[in-house]
């Protein structure tokens, strides 16, 4: 299988706190990879390193064999290919939902306004948010915001999407609508890396699950292996709090 990312011995510290202590990982095309672990284990940091929202302290990240930390790498171009969905949605507050979806296409992908709008409308339709295209993000519910944020990411035609706890800031009632949208993308075959606490969802959509603890990958394998037959003590301990 073709590798999208190859991560080698990645470390990241926040001041004296070691958050990532040497991560080695390959992420493949057509794969949905889920990262689980308790809060503070470094799973979000790992995800944020992948599109350089956090800059690693040492180690390498290769994207199709290219070192993304190479000074000659066009980071902005790279980021447009690696979509990101945030826990707090981060929709642009000063524009409509449609403009949220258009702005990146025009300024980064250099599409003309007409084409960008057409694509944006398609993507908003995909996530069921077309009715809200002229709304401001501040008037939407959490679930609607997250669906709009997913549409914004999709408009950039990303090769892979990183989702950082996409449902953690939502009311329980709204989790379903967002997970449905993500599931739809999975079925389309878009590769994803998901950080989540939704174990049932992880089990349903993932090809591979990684369990992280204290900045290291403790265990990885198929959802069945990791969630139902964990081998490591730490994994068992973590999962005992979830009814899987």
């Amino acid at each position, binding site marked *: 299988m073709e590798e999208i990312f190859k991560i080698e011995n990645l470390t990241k510290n926040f001041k004296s706190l070691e958050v990532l202590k040497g991560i080695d990982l390959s992420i493949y095309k057509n794969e949905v990879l889920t990262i689980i672990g308790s809060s503070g284990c470094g799973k979000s940091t790992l995800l944020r390193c992948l599109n350089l929202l956090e800059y690693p302290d040492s180690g390498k990240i290769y994207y199709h064999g290219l070192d993304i930390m190479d000074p000659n790498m066009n980071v902005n171009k790279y980021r447009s290919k690696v*979509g990101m969905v945030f826990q*707090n949605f*981060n929709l642009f507050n000063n524009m409509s939902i449609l403009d949220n979806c258009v702005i990146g296409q025009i300024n980064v992908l250099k599409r003309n306004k007409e084409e960008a709008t057409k694509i944006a409308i398609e993507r908003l339709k995909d996530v069921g948010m077309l009715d809200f295209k002229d709304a401001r993000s501040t008037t939407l519910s959490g679930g609607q915001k997250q669906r709009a944020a997913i549409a914004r990411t999709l408009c950039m035609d990303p090769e892979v999407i990183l989702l950082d706890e996409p449902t953690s800031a939502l009311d329980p009632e709204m989790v379903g609508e967002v997970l449905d949208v993500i599931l739809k993308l999975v079925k389309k075959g878009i590769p994803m890396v998901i950080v989540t606490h939704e174990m049932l969802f992880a089990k349903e959509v993932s090809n591979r699950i990684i369990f992280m603890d204290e900045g290291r990958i403790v265990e990885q394998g198929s959802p069945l292996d990791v969630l139902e037959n964990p081998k490591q003590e730490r994994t068992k301990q973590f999962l005992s709090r979830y009814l899987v």
Partner: protein
Amino acid sequence: MKIDFSILINIFNRNISLFIHGIKITCLFAIVGTVGGLILGLLLGGIRALKVEKNDRGISKFFKVIGLAFTRFYIWVFRGTPMMVQAIFLYYFLKPVFHWNSFTAGLIIISINTAAYMAEIVRSGIQSIDNGQFEACRSIGLTFFQSLRYVILPQAIKNSFPSIGNQLIVNIKDSSMLNVLSVTELFFQTSSIAGSNYRYIETYLIAAIIYLLLTSLASAILNAIERKMNGGKKVKTSMEFS
């Protein structure tokens, strides 16, 4: 200690065209100074908000460091010295280069002075925006300056609008300092009138009333704009006495 209001009215009537000329020039300087200062301030404030990052290339790191040092120096100097001193110094110092008259020099000096304050207003406005907005910009591949232009600054300016508007009111009053360049603004006109009629109390009282009317008018307009920006909601903070 007595103010004779009939004399006051008389002075006003006799010098009405001089006062009106002064009002026009004062308004022109206040508006140009505020708008020019804002434009320059956006540039300086944008640079002030730059962060030197680990993955910067040598050359961009170099320009960032230089830019940050320059803006810090600029703000330090222009906020730390009186505009009156800046006006006289820069006017004579740069005259051999630009061959400018005092009017043009005054417009430029009030703009660059205001810019120092605007830069700090813009910087704190930028810093008040949730970092997630910026991260979302970067995550779809917008450059630093595109992020500022399309997402961060529109929100920052909206949030700092009261402080930006305040600069207009400050400039209505502070443009009076440009009388040292013989710019015929309201204060200069007032002192020439007073110099010919020797009625200092009445003449300067007229000037004070006019300044108060101008700042009140500006404040009312700013409040109306702010109300409109906030979708018709009433604005709590009043700038009446700023």
